[in-house]
């Protein structure tokens, strides 16, 4: 046996191994790859946890017959490598901006992956469904404004404000989401949006307090900005650290600090401005 024959034999052996390993590929390889990536992207973008993103992508890929898949997800990006058929390799890095949560979409993707595993969707159908999920609208503008007000009032009361404080918080909360709705669709930098939002809320709170409504300005402001503060992001960040996802944890932590600083800057600018003018 000469060298060439040995090499051929080894290659044949490897091919046989690979063919034994991989199940039947159900559908177009490229389509499967894009479907899996898209599912992860929609999950991560709308507030799915890191482990859920990785798990869902692996489950979907395995169901469509992918032998090996490696996913590495962080808070704002997904890295995935797949080999399909033993000869189709693909790697993609996808940046996913940290954005507001949409848990309805997370629920739908979860449902979709369950249905895929139950065999109810072909690759093309799953892709269509995923595109539909991606376009599920947010709650209507007015509902968001109203519930921002109600939420602000409720949190103001829970954090120790009086009923009158809650009333002022309610009004300030309404204005907060009027502004947030206004920025949506326009390319507003996140930090700027939050700073201006916090300033606006503080201005309204101080004005109403000045006009004699509400008792404690501190309670009013803290209640009104509660919809902005990144408490969930901080908790997620610590959870990521505990899970060993140090990079994801660091990214969330930096995001938390940025948002928190923006809020404080907004509030403190407005308070100083008011004190300076009067």
């Amino acid at each position, binding site marked *: 046996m000469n060298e060439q024959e040995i090499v051929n034999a080894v290659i044949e052996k490897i091919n046989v191994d690979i063919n034994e390993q991989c199940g039947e590929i159900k559908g177009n390889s490229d389509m499967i790859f894009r479907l899996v990536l898209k599912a992860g992207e929609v999950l991560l973008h709308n507030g*799915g946890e890191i482990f859920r993103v990785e798990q869902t992508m692996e489950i979907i890929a395995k169901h469509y017959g992918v032998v090996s898949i490696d996913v590495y997800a962080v808070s704002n990006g997904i890295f995935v490598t797949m080999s399909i058929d033993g000869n189709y390799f693909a790697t993609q890095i996808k940046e996913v901006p940290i954005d507001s949560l949409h848990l309805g979409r997370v629920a739908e993707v979860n449902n979709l992956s369950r249905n895929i595993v139950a065999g109810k969707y072909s690759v093309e159908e799953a892709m269509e469904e995923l595109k539909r999920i991606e376009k599920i609208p947010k*709650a209507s503008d007015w509902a*968001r404004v109203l519930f*921002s007000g109600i939420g602000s009032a409720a*949190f103001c009361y*829970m954090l120790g404000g009086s009923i009158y404080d809650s009333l002022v918080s309610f009004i300030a909360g309404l204005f907060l989401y009027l502004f947030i709705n206004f920025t949506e669709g326009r390319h507003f930098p996140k930090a700027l949006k939050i700073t201006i939002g916090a300033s606006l809320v503080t201005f309204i709170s101080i004005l109403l307090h000045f006009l004699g409504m509400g008792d404690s300005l501190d309670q009013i402001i803290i209640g009104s900005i509660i919809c902005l503060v990144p408490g969930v992001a901080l*908790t997620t960040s610590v*959870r990521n650290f*505990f899970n060993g996802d140090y990079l994801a944890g660091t990214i969330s932590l930096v995001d938390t600090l940025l948002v928190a600083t923006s809020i404080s800057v907004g509030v*403190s600018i407005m308070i100083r401005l008011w004190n300076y003018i009067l």
Partner: protein
Amino acid sequence: MLIQLVVAFIATISIALLFDVPKIEFFYCGLTGGIGWVVYLLVFEGIDSKVLATLAAALTVSFIARIFAVRRRLPVTIFLISGIFSLVPGAGIYYTTYFLLDNKFAEAFNKGVETISIAISISFGIMIVFFIPQKIFLLLNNMRKKDERKKWY
């Protein structure tokens, strides 16, 4: 306390809407948040420690969230994020950065440590409940169904 429960219920539902939770789940989210907040207040009254009270409330919220997740066949995040919102140290983060900007470093440090401790205790609470295997929650869910059958039929 009943007023606090109702207010926390409403607050959690508002947050759930802002996070675009499906409307059918609002009641469950509100219940998770409301009960969590009442547990927090009760424990806080008892032992006067924000961190321990938060831990107890986080345990409760995560446990209820997992039960609802199994029962409603949805990701646990939906109930967990909305339910935990009333516990997360949003005010603490705000005060910390606010004191920093105001050059009050001692206060900022105190608030900062408290905030981080609360965040850690919440994460700890969630983690402990997540260690409970899924089977137990499935079992709890089945038990409930059997009870209902006895009751209704």
